[in-house]
């Protein structure tokens, strides 16, 4: 096992960078950016690509939200465990702020290689939080505030995954999971984005993977 600590406060100054323009005109989508850095902070790999796969829960939550439906009239929506929750438009709907080591919401990573489908509701093979073999240390999820240029507006969801497992871990799938409430005290988790990266992202031992999902709209 390597002595590596997760960054609990990912550097979100990245928001000062130029807004990526990969979406087509009129698209509402996400840009997926991932960066692998060594223990000295040197970038060993960086890729920016269009996230391809909003899944049905995203549209279903938006549908509930637009109508401000309560739990009596909300929509049954698949949660990450394969059950169904009657989602209501609660103020906590969409909450994605997973804490350190929390693998129920926020950005999650896995090793599944199935091509995403509209009906995917959970990550195929989750990489657990930890320092054991095949595990990554999940930081807290952080957010970059909205910004815009002449055509594009975005905000960013960020999470770091530090590899202290003693061996390389290859990430093939990335998901974004948000929270909902079916009534005042019962919370559910819904996967709203799932991307599969052909070839995977190699995270050598001692290095950290930073994943940015930039949710964008274009004008």
């Amino acid at each position, binding site marked *: 096992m390597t002595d590596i600590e997760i960054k609990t406060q990912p550097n979100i100054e990245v928001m000062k960078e130029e807004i990526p323009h990969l979406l087509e*005109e009129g698209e509402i*989508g996400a840009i997926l950016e991932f960066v692998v850095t060594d223990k000295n902070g040197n970038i060993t790999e960086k890729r920016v690509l269009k996230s391809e796969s909003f899944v049905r829960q995203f549209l279903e939550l938006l549908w509930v939200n637009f109508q401000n439906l309560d739990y009596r009239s909300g929509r049954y929506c698949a949660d990450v465990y394969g059950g169904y929750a009657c989602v209501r*438009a609660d103020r906590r709907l969409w909450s994605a702020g997973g804490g350190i080591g929390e693998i129920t919401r926020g950005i999650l990573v896995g090793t599944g290689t199935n091509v995403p489908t*509209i009906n995917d509701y959970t990550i195929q093979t989750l990489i657990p939080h930890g320092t054991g073999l095949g595990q990554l240390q999940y930081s807290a999820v952080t957010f970059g505030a909205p910004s815009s240029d002449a055509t594009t*507006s975005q905000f960013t969801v960020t999470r770091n995954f530090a590899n202290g497992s003693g061996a390389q871990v290859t990430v093939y799938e990335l998901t974004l999971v948000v929270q909902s409430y079916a009534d005042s005290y019962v919370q559910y988790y819904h996967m709203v984005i799932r991307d599969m990266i052909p070839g995977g992202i190699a995270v050598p031992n001692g290095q950290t993977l930073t994943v940015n999902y930039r949710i964008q709209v274009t004008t």
Partner: protein
Amino acid sequence: MMRGLIEIDRFGKNGVEHRSHLCRSFNRNFISMLYSAFAQVNYTLTDIDGISRTCEIDRDRPLLGVTQPALYLPFTGQEMLGVQVGSSDIVTSPLDSDLGSRIPHADATPETANIIMEGVRYTGMTSTRSIYSAYWAMQTLHVPWPVNVYAVRLYCYRAGDLSARTLTVSIRKTDGSWNPTGADLASGTATGAQLQGITTDTNGQWFEVTMISPYVLRPYTRYCIIVRLDGGDSSNSLRWQYGGSGSSSGYRLYRYGADCTGSSSNSGTSWSLSDSYHQSQYFLVMGRHPIGLCHYPTTVRTISFPAPPPDMQFTIERLFHNFSGSAITLRETGLYASAPTSASYENFVYLIARDVLTAPITVNNDELLKVSYAVQISV
């Protein structure tokens, strides 16, 4: 990936005209509301009046309501949410906070003469504000439906000689703190000869000032009436009556965030507001229903799974009926959504999408128009 598609159907006497084009313009407000929800943080947005409001994450009051607000939408109805249309073709921007020129709700042909559209007068004890020189007075107001204001009546009396004076009555918007802001949206004046006709009886009377050009007031927006005189002194002034203080019978129009009276001693540079629930200057807004389109409720259709692509979609749609008696040309569409602020238990309205049509569409009298936003996902 997600997309929006705008579909427009015009139901005329000669059949249906259908158009469809990509929605290009979900904007920064939409992204900001999602950000606020994802991160569970308060965030400042610009509402359709151009006022910065803090969108607050608060229990049971979610944001992004396009068919109904979570709780309380002040002084307006569902017409100010959901699908909207307008007549401007100004190029869209991610920072657009409102349509270029929104077409108001109207369910009838405009009247041919002015009627009382809004106003306040109590019959109990009254007080007066003296208006002269740098001493101005104001009263905020909302209208419950769109009003084309032609004139404003003040309940007042005259003190002394106003034969050399000019009275100006104008309407402005207010800012987030209810102070008057911006230029006059409409104004009218009364000359000395007219002012001398105002009673000196302290019981007062209605005095009407006609606006130079009519102006359409819309629900949701908090306006104010400003009254000023170009000189005079305390003995030669207009006395505008107000009242209702301390009397529950005076509770007139508004709950939370009731409208307020105000005065300025420096020609409107700064204002002293009195926001008692039960006080109002006495005024009547005289006008007519504007030319507009009847806004039927916005509805969100159920989720469907058409043969891909797209894999999945729902539509947000609204019917508009032209009862105005004349043709109306549309050049833009938009979506309004509500978001809460816990400070005043109010929801405010934000533009979350705006599109300029590739070609204008004219809706003739008695024609029906359906505007649909299809929100789609393709994997």
